[in-house]
């Protein structure tokens, strides 16, 4: 066997191995989703969405948890989006490149990898106790905002970095100020990347359970939150609660709620992919 044949063989082996691994992951995922669908799909109807929690599985619905999740998403977005993007723009465009900014940079990347329960502890201390917000939707949203800020900052910086320098040069050369250049050229050209990052970060936030439990989100709330200061529950906590009950009916409920949660994250990820494609086309 000569060298070319050897290389071809290696190529083939690697290809088969790669396909095998991909298939394995996909099959596992399909199996998991299939299992959940079988358990839960029949349980999903309009009543399931709008019913309040109940001790009887066939009467219980996800309304309070779903509303809690929506409140959390909404508040987290309006807190984390502007702060994260502003911080990313500052770090990328304004801050001087010195030792301090290098340390800052490394730490922000590291923060993105800190276990979420640590954020929960921070939120419990700062928002719930010191600021006296209690176990409210607002305290939960602030905690999740901290959790996803590093992700948004890093995504913003990456997106801004990808804007060609030649575009900025052209803007400056026409007499634009730094802010005008950022606002009219840099942000529009990087908006797809930034939005992708924000949406992925938010879809992580909807799925978070641990930090919210630490902050004091409840497994059972009688009503959906009506203001940022109200008690709340969220879908993942509701699911966790149902799964730990003995009755089979609750297992069905949990599966149904998982389907809804998956649907929400799939839709969010779909939107993110859409923006990314659009953005890549724009910068050719």
């Amino acid at each position, binding site marked *: 066997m000569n060298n070319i044949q050897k290389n071809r063989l290696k190529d083939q082996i690697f290809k088969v191995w790669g396909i095998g691994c991909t298939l394995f992951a996909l099959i596992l995922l399909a199996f998991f989703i299939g299992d959940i669908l079988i358990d839960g799909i029949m349980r999903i109807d309009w009543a399931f969405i709008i019913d309040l929690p109940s001790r009887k599985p066939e009467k219980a619905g996800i309304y309070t948890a779903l509303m809690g999740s929506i409140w959390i998403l909404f508040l987290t977005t309006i807190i984390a989006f502007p702060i994260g993007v502003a911080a990313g723009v500052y770090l990328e465009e304004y801050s001087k490149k010195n030792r301090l900014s290098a340390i800052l940079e490394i730490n922000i990347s590291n923060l993105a990898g800190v276990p979420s329960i640590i954020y929960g502890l921070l939120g419990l201390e700062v928002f719930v106790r010191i600021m006296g917000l209690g176990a409210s939707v607002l305290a939960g949203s602030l905690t999740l905002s901290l959790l996803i800020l590093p992700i948004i900052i890093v995504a913003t910086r990456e997106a801004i970095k990808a804007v*060609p320098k030649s575009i900025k040069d052209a803007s400056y050369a*026409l007499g634009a*100020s730094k802010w005008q250049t950022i606002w009219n050229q840099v942000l529009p050209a990087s908006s797809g990347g930034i939005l992708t990052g924000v949406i992925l970060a938010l879809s992580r936030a909807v799925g978070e359970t641990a930090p919210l439990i630490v902050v004091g989100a409840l497994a059972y709330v009688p009503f959906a939150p009506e203001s940022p200061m109200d008690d709340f529950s969220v879908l993942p906590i509701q699911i966790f609660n149902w799964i730990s009950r003995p009755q089979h009916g609750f297992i069905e409920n949990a599966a149904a709620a998982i389907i809804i949660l998956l649907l929400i994250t799939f839709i969010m990820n779909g939107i993110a992919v859409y923006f990314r494609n659009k953005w890549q086309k724009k910068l*050719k």
Partner: protein
Amino acid sequence: MAKEIEINMETITEQIPGKLIDPSLKKKSKIEVKDVKVWYDDFNAIKGIDMNIKPNTVTAFIGPSGCGKSTFLRLFNRMNDYIEGFRMEGKIKINGDNIYKKKVNVEELRKEIGMVFQKPNPFPKSIFDNVAYGLKIQGITDKQLIEERVIYCLKQVALWDEVKDDLKKSGMALSGGQQQRLCIARTLAVQPSIILMDEPTSALDPISTAKVEELIFKLKEKYTIIIVTHNMQQASRISDYTAFFYLGELIEYNKTKTIFTNPEKQQTENYITGRFG
């Protein structure tokens, strides 16, 4: 300098709304360079240059790669200011005012001194918005004025006939040569009096190059143009004056004809005849 320009811009936008002001009516821009030195950190890129440039002429900067042509060119609109480690000494006066004085408003300066880059760099926006950008950032909202100016500038660069039916198309969808002419139109829209061009045709095919050269020839009536080029034929075809740089120094600066037919320095002759560089 900054003050004069400000007054200038006001007359354009306020006193004659909707009207196009002909750049040839504007003040002529005389450039004086006095003992200019530039460093990038410890590297001395420009080693003391004196030079005067007359209004309404085309001046070509030539010289081997790395001799400091682009660095020197970018001094005139202060585009080096953003480069880390950049430091400069000396004076550059435009109409008698030093543009490196503390009080100078760099944004106003750049409206007076346009720049065209080596690689065509249209914005990822429509053709119309590309040309209108310079006006928009000046806060001009008069739609009619913007439209007139965009059309006028596209006609100036002979792009109008090619794009008039799809002004909404992205500027990046044009061919390289069209993109470069779009970039020139975009620069003209701000109505500068000086235009700096850094190898504007080096990324273009021969036909597009000829079009841009023709355009430069025409623009000379109204603007002062400085062009960096590696193409000796181009320098001799389009420029009135030629400056030869070598290792950060201005070796020879004279009428283009003299430089190409009867250079004073041996180095210049060697370079233009292709014996080095």
